[in-house]
């Protein structure tokens, strides 16, 4: 059984657009740790399009195609909240939008010594942000350790 009927998110999309229009940016700055409906506010904010929405065993993935060529994937748990995001492409996505309230924790976390421009592994409480790559090909992921669905394989998070 899929966790959601595929059309739900599209209906939610229209509702979300209306809500965003009505409520302004308050709703728009949320994703990681927020309800699935915020996937749509991401799409609107990022001038992007949903490429696919796929139900997998125990979670759902929305793949968002950003205009600059980068793919952003948002992972939704059975409780309806986004528990992870992952990206890969020539540039990074708007992580302030995708990480929502967790962005500042990520941005201000101490960085590695020795200096390492090619990898990132940040653990701040529940938040884990990891990345690797080089110019023209950057990838990464962020997730909330306590929000992973039971039995979730981190290897799926890319």
């Amino acid at each position, binding site marked *: 059984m899929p966790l959601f009927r595929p059309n739900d998110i599209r209906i939610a999309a229209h509702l979300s657009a209306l809500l965003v229009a009505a409520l302004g940016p308050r709703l728009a700055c949320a994703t990681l740790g927020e309800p699935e409906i915020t996937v749509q506010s991401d799409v609107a904010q990022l001038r992007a399009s949903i490429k696919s929405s796929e139900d997998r065993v125990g979670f759902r993935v929305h793949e968002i195609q950003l*205009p*600059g*060529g980068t793919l952003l994937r948002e992972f939704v748990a059975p409780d309806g909240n986004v528990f992870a995001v*992952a990206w890969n492409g*020539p*540039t*990074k*996505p*708007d*992580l*302030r*939008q995708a*990480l929502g309230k967790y*962005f500042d924790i*990520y*941005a201000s976390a101490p*960085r*590695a*010594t*020795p*200096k*390492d*421009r*090619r*990898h*990132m*592994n940040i653990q701040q409480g529940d938040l884990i942000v*990891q*990345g*690797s*790559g*080089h*110019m*023209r*090909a*950057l*990838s*990464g*992921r962020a997730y909330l350790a306590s929000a992973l669905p039971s039995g979730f394989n*981190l*290897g799926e*998070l*890319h």
Partner: protein
Amino acid sequence: MAFMRALRVGLGAAICVSAISCGGGGGGGTTPIPPPPGPTANTASVVVDQGPSANSVNTLFTSVKVCVPGSTTSCQTIDHIQVDTGSYGLRLLAPVLTLTLPVEMLSGGGSLAECTQFVDGYSWGPVALADVQMAGETGKSVPVQVIGDSRFTSVPAQCSSTGGTQEDTVATFGANGILGIGPFETDCGDCDKVVRNIYYACATTSNCVETLVPTAMQTTNPVTRFAADNNGIIIDLPTVANAGAVTLTGSLIFGIDTQSDNKSGTQTVLTVDGTAELAMTFNGTTLANSFIDSGSNGIFFADSNIVTCTNPNINTFYCPANTLTLGLSIQGANGVMVNNLTFNVGDAQTILSTAPTNTYFVLPELAGTLPAGNAGTFDYGLAFFYGKRVAVAVEGNKTSVGTGPYFAF
């Protein structure tokens, strides 16, 4: 110190040759018959050391001389520019730059600025023009990025929203600049057609919006703008003891098969794909998104059988009880395979914290993990270059053994 002396000798050569190559232009009068041209000095010295902010290991540096375009006097030689085959273009840290380089102006109005994204952060600053000199080679009016320029302190939200550290000081950047000499010509490629949150048009220095930008104005691998020896580079580093070394000096040679000192010989050519990646086979698994990268300061791959360090500061590095010798194959996009390579994985805790290696900056056995989501990647860093002569040919350029983009060794 020996390597500083070598750098100074190299710079002396650069100054001499550029003086000879100047002149020309002007009309009327008799032109003296020029002496027969000798070979252009095409070798710069490179060094692995602690870097200008004393927090680097396995990081390769060189010196670059930049001049205000057309000037032979408004010039500056900047040391500790990181040599990076994993990026494209020269970027200078404004705090060490004493020159005022002219910022590129877009035909539609506004000055050109750039948001350069790294895995762990971003750098912001204008794209300016400079004559770039290394050894006897000169590139005229090369677009270079000036990172942390005090005139452009207002970072667009879209750039800072990519997150991480703003790397606009020598301390945060870990170098006085970076010399991107990988196998492509520009840092974006198609930013003349696609807006990628890289290039910005600034009506004022604090009012910048994303823009398309002609290829010729994009931050450019300066080697491709040299008058000669411009089809690629060779990095030639001596063999290092397994335990490592305090420092290491070697050569950065410009051009491939353009002079007697940069011949391909019997090197094996491995071409790379559109993101400069190739396939590496490790532990029986082929990792399609792998790369050879002088800008990576370790050997990074996923292997759940190797224990990671317990020290929380380095817990993404490997700490095996005994040094491991592991095998690797590399296959180019052209299908050519190099088998039977080996590399060592040492105990990072011991390497970084106990004498004598805790005072070394050349650490060939330093290796670390990649997040599981990047299981398709093997990132073979500067250690790959130790004891090798590695050629990097730029896209679309021919050598006697192939056409770039490729790595050969």
